[in-house]
């Protein structure tokens, strides 16, 4: 747990000040690898595992980092810290919003913020799609086009789209295919 004690303050600081997985991981890399607390290989292994784990990449990254440093106790410690700290901040913001939601100024502020949030969501999805299809351009584009046709036809639920995408990806998008 000695290693966890070295990493914990960094995770705590990152969880309270950095927004999003990429920014947080980049900052942690500069603090952990550059200072010799973690090897570049170990960092990359945790990064790869986080990409493969369902759910939020950053939390999986922290679990992998914690497990490497202190087995289950380390994994659960880092997961708890990196989940609870931002969750408390999010709920606090939600409470403030719920209290003042009907005020005219807040309504207008949130209208602008929501327009930006949708734009960011659109851009994030487009960038993620472009980056992932670029790894296997032709097959990735075919899968994306097929998924788009199915989604816009409204014929199946999102779960079916994801399960079919996973099956096709396992068969078509492996490194050796």
């Amino acid at each position, binding site marked *: 747990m000695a290693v966890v004690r070295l990493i914990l303050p960094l995770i705590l600081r990152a969880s309270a000040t950095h927004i*999003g*997985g990429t920014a947080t991981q980049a900052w942690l890399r500069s603090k952990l690898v550059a200072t010799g607390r973690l090897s570049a290989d170990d960092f990359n292994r945790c990064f790869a595992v986080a990409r493969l784990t369902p759910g939020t990449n950053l939390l999986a990254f922290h679990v992998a980092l914690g*497990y490497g440093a202190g087995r289950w106790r380390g994994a659960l410690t880092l997961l708890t810290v990196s989940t609870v700290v931002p969750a408390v*901040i999010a709920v606090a913001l939600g409470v403030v919003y719920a209290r003042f939601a009907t005020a005219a100024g807040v309504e207008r502020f949130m209208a602008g913020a929501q327009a930006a949030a949708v734009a960011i969501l659109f851009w994030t999805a487009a960038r993620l799609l472009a980056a992932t299809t670029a790894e296997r351009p032709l097959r990735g584009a075919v899968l994306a086009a097929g998924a*788009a046709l199915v989604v816009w036809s409204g014929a199946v639920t999102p779960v079916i789209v994801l399960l079919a995408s996973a099956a096709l990806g*396992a068969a078509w998008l492996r490194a050796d295919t």
Partner: protein
Amino acid sequence: MSAWVLYLLLLKATVLSFSGLTSIPLVHEDLVVRRGVLTDEQLNTALAIGQTTPGPIGMWMVLVGFFVAGLPGAAAGTLALATPAILAVPLLGIVRRGRTDVVAGAARGIVIGASVLTLATALGLGATAVTTAPLALVGVAALGLVAATRVAPLWIVLLAGGAGLLLT
């Protein structure tokens, strides 16, 4: 809706996604379309606040839980967000043994499918959020900023909020 059912629905969404935002289509389908316990506007608000909250981008899910069922809902959202991360431990073992090709291919497929679903959801949410010409202008400006600069989403959302205050 009980916090337990909410947890299971949100867990389903996180388990079937591979990033903080790609679970939005499933949450939209389950809570807005099928059960009607969340509105498009609340989902948009959760996303907007989530973009300004430190930590993982997926924090919007905690706010979805809060809007649906108060503090127990927020706890359900937090647990649903954290639970799948535990899977990183067995995956770490697989990666160490070098058996990642099938999992990596499936993950790529899911990211592609989820991205397409998220684009469709974003278009739907856009129709709810962008209702006037000034808001369309704010949305386009935000898209330009996020695409062409390295300005963090937090500042873009806050700037857009300020623009909304002035323009609408």
